[in-house]
């Protein structure tokens, strides 16, 4: 019995172009002139996150915490909810900060973020997920890989639900899609549906 046939995209969040969408509905938007750090700060306030550790994080982790917090708000999920994330630029944004500092004094608080999977760690801590994590690097959004791998975790019982998606950040441009996949919902968890959620706001 293929359990994945009973899996649905329970909830989805999209962060792009100074705007945050929950299930395709805009819940927050800013003037297009707002820079990345202000966007991250103002979104935190407007969404009432109340998580002081947020301010210590690099921008990729902030995007992940923003996204996952809104995505998982008032949702039911177990501690074995897996995280299956991907992007093209790895931790490029903070890597460049570290490269700049290498000529003088290196900051441990910057270096610690120079791995793409740190965002998985931060999300695991915030939402108390002791679960399967993986970070894939892809040249562009690849629904096939996300669906295929999430299904192996769901079908083998290694996870009861999955948060999967794309979290790209380069040169202050961000592009985030996170989906909660579980056995609740109406949108079947298929490559086509995942692709469509990504294309939305990309056209």
């Amino acid at each position, binding site marked *: 019995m293929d359990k994945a046939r009973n899996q649905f995209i329970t909830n989805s969040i999209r962060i792009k172009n100074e705007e945050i969408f929950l299930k395709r509905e805009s819940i927050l938007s800013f003037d297009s002139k707002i820079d990345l750090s202000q966007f991250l700060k103002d979104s935190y306030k407007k969404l009432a996150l109340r998580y002081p550790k947020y301010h210590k994080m690099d921008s990729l982790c902030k995007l992940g915490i923003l996204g996952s917090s809104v995505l998982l708000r008032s949702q039911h999920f177990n501690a074995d909810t897996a995280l299956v994330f991907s992007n093209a630029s790895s931790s490029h944004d903070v890597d460049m900060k570290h490269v700049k500092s290498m000529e003088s004094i290196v900051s441990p608080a910057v270096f610690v973020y120079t791995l793409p999977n*740190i965002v998985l760690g*931060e999300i695991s801590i915030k939402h108390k997920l002791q679960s399967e994590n993986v970070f894939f690097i892809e040249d562009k959004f690849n629904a096939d890989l996300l669906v295929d791998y999430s299904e*192996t975790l769901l079908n083998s019982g290694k996870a009861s639900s999955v948060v999967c998606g794309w979290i790209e950040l380069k040169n202050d441009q961000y592009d985030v899609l996170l989906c909660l996949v579980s056995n609740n919902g109406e949108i079947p968890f298929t490559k086509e549906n995942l692709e469509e959620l990504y294309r939305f706001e990309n056209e």
Partner: protein
Amino acid sequence: MDILLQEDSIISPLGFSTSENIKAMKAGNSGLQFHENLRFQNGGFYAGIIEAALLADNFSIIGDATKFTKLEQMMLLATQSVLNNNQLDLSETALIISSTKGNIDLFGNPQNFSKDRAKLNSLAKIIQEFFGFKLKPIIVSNACISGGLAVAISKRFIQAGKFNNAIVVAGDLVSDFVTSGFQSFQALSATPCKPFSKNRDGISLGEAAAAILVSNNKREGDSVSLIGDASTNDANHISAPSRTGEGLYKSIQQALKESKLSASEMDYLSAHGTATIFNDEMEAVAFNRAALAHVPVNSFKGFYGHTLGASALLETILTKHSLLNNELYPSLNFEELGVSKPLNIIQKIEKKELKTALKTASGFGGCNLAMILKKSFNG
């Protein structure tokens, strides 16, 4: 469905094939040597670094060394020697790449290469095109468990019927990027690292590439299968190991459950053993919670240093050969036990009938991995 760990290859300071590496290890050689580096007050640090000229020399048999970065040469050589011994159809063989930082130093200092080459996507593309793999490479970048997680992922995909064969290739360098970062963490050892020892004082970095064929095709003779695997996040801290070893403990329990074996049936344990105070202590706590205190255990870091995204694959390959050779290899540089819980550290080479092994790894971001390997005979 049996998932077999077949041909493999290791490119490291100890040699350019798995057999050269095992021979050097058995002779008690270590890849860790003192290298001059102005970042350090005492003029340098201990690390496992591959001699570039020697590498280029070896590489010239398969390609033009001037056209490839050091890491690319290492990973291409590792892949080539796995492919040499196989008649694989590359139109349906998966390529899974694992690295934490790839060619990261090219961002600051591109030398003769384009900065674009620093991207992990470029690294994967170069390996794909060099050999003509048709499937799009899968790239896993999950800190220090990457190389092992890539093996687990290939197993999961094979079991799901996505493909029958996967080449997993892992590699990382001792880059200035990583060296400066670990130095700021005050995590680097002043001597070659001493995993699990009382006077351990941190990590030695190392570089290596490793490759392995993961397949569901049975062969005659002894073979080693991956029969259980699990990865669990600590959800505790992004860089400090969990005091309770929670994620590692849970990974071990899950992997054992899948393998239908118990802790008492494990013949050998290949630990992560980075030689930082907190990592080794965390592992000792987790192993004791999992009732593994009696199992012969080693860390290979004394031979290689911490090879980051390559380490868990490199050490899985060595674990596989431990099983095939019925040999336990020592935890090099071990002196006196310096963790709060008992461990059965392997101190000299020992011949012993071995059937099962547990390989573990842990990394930044709070990630942990456990894999159960089992030897079987096909007549």
